[in-house]
């Protein structure tokens, strides 16, 4: 038995990925659940408009944090600020009763706002998700998660299967250009993921009544960019994995933070600043912003420029790195010029 235990430790010590999982995963879970796993939004960016804006702003207390105060603006500007995600709450003064417009697409923020406003005489109007349905917020984010799953895990497995079966070596010596092989491997997954995108979005509408208020083209552009990123990550994983088990292990290690820190489950606003910044490095964070913005608020290109630009940047960097790495796998082995001795197979 001792020999078995010793052998297992020896193998574990050399299996760097499993060791990383053993060390990184507990730390990640500790950090996430310690600093990020909170549904309590303590700060709500609140704009105040209308003739009484200055006085109303002065009276606001936590969790409302005063953003822009514009006595000249009216109801239309208020709604525009919510639609473009520049504020969580906009207080419109000037009528008989001041109205608090709340962004329902920010589910936990809206719940916190409603709870806080219930103690005031203000009239509350929740926009974009009036009944504060969880499914309305989750479905757009789930679309991203499903694309991440297909793009990352399925693509990585498909490519590693080629390597494991020895057929990648075969492809490398067939009369294909590297770009033929790379595109030939990636395009099917891209198309399948795009099909899944359509199916999941339509099902989300049919089953949960999730609205689609914005432009299909804007949504398609964002999803297309996001797909390039996740497919690129899948290709990168495949280039550093020798078998499907390794690929799945690595893909899960990359997917886990996306699920927990992208704002899909726990609101980014409720996370500690350090952890929140990890979320800002993840592509799913930006796709979630984009899909919720388009589907629920009807955001247009102009108001979604930030997630689109970030996704485009990520797509260029990740996809280029993936193609270069994959091309290297297809190229002839590069021998060394240094001195060496010994045999090789």
């Amino acid at each position: 038995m001792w020999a078995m235990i010793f052998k297992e430790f020896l193998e574990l010590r050399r299996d760097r990925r499993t060791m990383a999982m053993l060390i990184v995963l507990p730390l990640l879970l500790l950090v996430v659940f310690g600093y990020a796993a909170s549904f309590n939004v303590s700060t709500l960016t609140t704009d105040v408009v209308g003739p009484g804006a200055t006085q109303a702003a002065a009276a606001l207390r936590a969790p409302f944090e005063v953003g822009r105060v514009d006595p000249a603006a009216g109801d239309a500007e208020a709604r525009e600020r919510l639609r473009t995600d520049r504020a969580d709450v906009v207080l419109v003064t000037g009528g008989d009763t001041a109205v608090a417009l709340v962004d329902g697409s920010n589910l936990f923020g809206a719940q916190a706002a409603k709870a806080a406003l219930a103690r005031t005489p203000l009239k509350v109007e929740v926009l974009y998700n009036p009944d504060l349905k969880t499914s309305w917020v989750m479905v757009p984010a789930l679309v991203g998660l499903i694309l991440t799953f297909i793009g990352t895990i399925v693509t990585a497995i498909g490519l590693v299967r080629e390597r494991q079966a020895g057929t990648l070596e075969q492809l490398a010596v067939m009369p294909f250009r590297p770009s033929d092989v790379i595109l030939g491997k990636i395009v099917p997954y891209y198309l399948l993921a795009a099909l899944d995108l359509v199916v999941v979005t339509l099902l989300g509408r049919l089953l949960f009544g999730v609205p689609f208020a914005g432009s299909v083209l804007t949504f398609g552009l964002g999803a297309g960019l996001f797909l390039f990123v996740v497919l690129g990550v899948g290709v990168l994983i495949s280039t550093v994995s020798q078998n499907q088990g390794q690929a799945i292990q690595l893909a899960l290690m990359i997917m886990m933070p996306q699920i927990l820190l992208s704002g899909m489950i726990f609101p980014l606003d409720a996370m500690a600043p350090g952890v929140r910044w990890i979320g800002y490095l993840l592509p799913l964070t930006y796709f979630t912003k984009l899909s919720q913005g388009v589907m629920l608020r009807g955001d247009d290109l102009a108001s979604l420029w930030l997630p689109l630009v970030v996704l485009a940047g990520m797509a260029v960097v990740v996809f280029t790195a993936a193609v270069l790495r994959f091309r290297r796998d297809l190229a002839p082995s590069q021998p060394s010029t240094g001195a060496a001795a010994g045999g090789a197979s």
Partner: protein
Amino acid sequence: MTWGTTDLTVRYPHTLALDAVTFAAPAGQISAVVGGDGAGKSTLLRSLVGGVRPTSGRVDAPALREIGFMPTGTGVWRELTVAENLDFVAAAYGVRDRDRRAALLAAAGLEQVTGRLAGQLSGGMRQKLAFTLAMLHAPRLLVLDEPSTGVDPVSRVELWRLIARAAVDGAAVVLSTTYLDEAERAGTVCVLDNGRVLRSGPPEDVMSSTPGTITVTDDPPDRDLAWRRGRQWHAWHPGPPLPGETPVAADMEDAVIAATLALREQGPSAATSDPSATTPGPDTATSGLPPTTPGPDTATSATTPGPTTSGSPS
């Protein structure tokens, strides 16, 4: 037309995989590359198909479109049926000749299983499918990396029938194998040891150039210099037969083992990539065995390995 390598050296970061290897693969002939694990067989074959970039030396090979390659582990797409595998490779090489495809399938005995997934084929059938894929476009150079490893004896016979037919049809066939009885069937044999050519030439020359003396015994005096052949031992010692000894004629297995043992006795500097330049070591000289005399194919390969084509990977 002769393909091959001239003074090919391939050096990996911590490994000298090939050391000035000259190897010839004439058209219409089977050239076998033999050697133990880590000898450099796969590196030599992968160099021929452009899978390895040489550190120095020359590789003469046709364009990729004219090379058929069967890597170790078959290189068939297991999730595709036999027919789909053939369709894919035919499309890649632009092969439209359905008759050739049917003839190859029939020769490989696969015509009844075209709808079966490659992953569900037996090991021997899968190897034959891989061979069929490599042959589909009628390559001028057919490179097979251990095609018969792990294949049952009957399938090995069938596979060899296909390989021999490919050579008869004019392809230069290069195969690596660990089965030395198979190497005896080749037109030329290249014995590699630690990346260097230990022996090279027609099988009969390789066998006749066996250094030292081999005897059959039930109780070898030094088991480090003996190997089992069935229920008996073959023992080797340098130099001519001792009084009372009855040496046996070496077959390919004996020849390769004896050459390896002789090299170890002499030290690694004794190996050479050019057998015609072999300076007989003391064992060979005293044994009365002739110095390694390459066959005409090998002599050609060492000096004029054939024209470098546009497809040369180097």
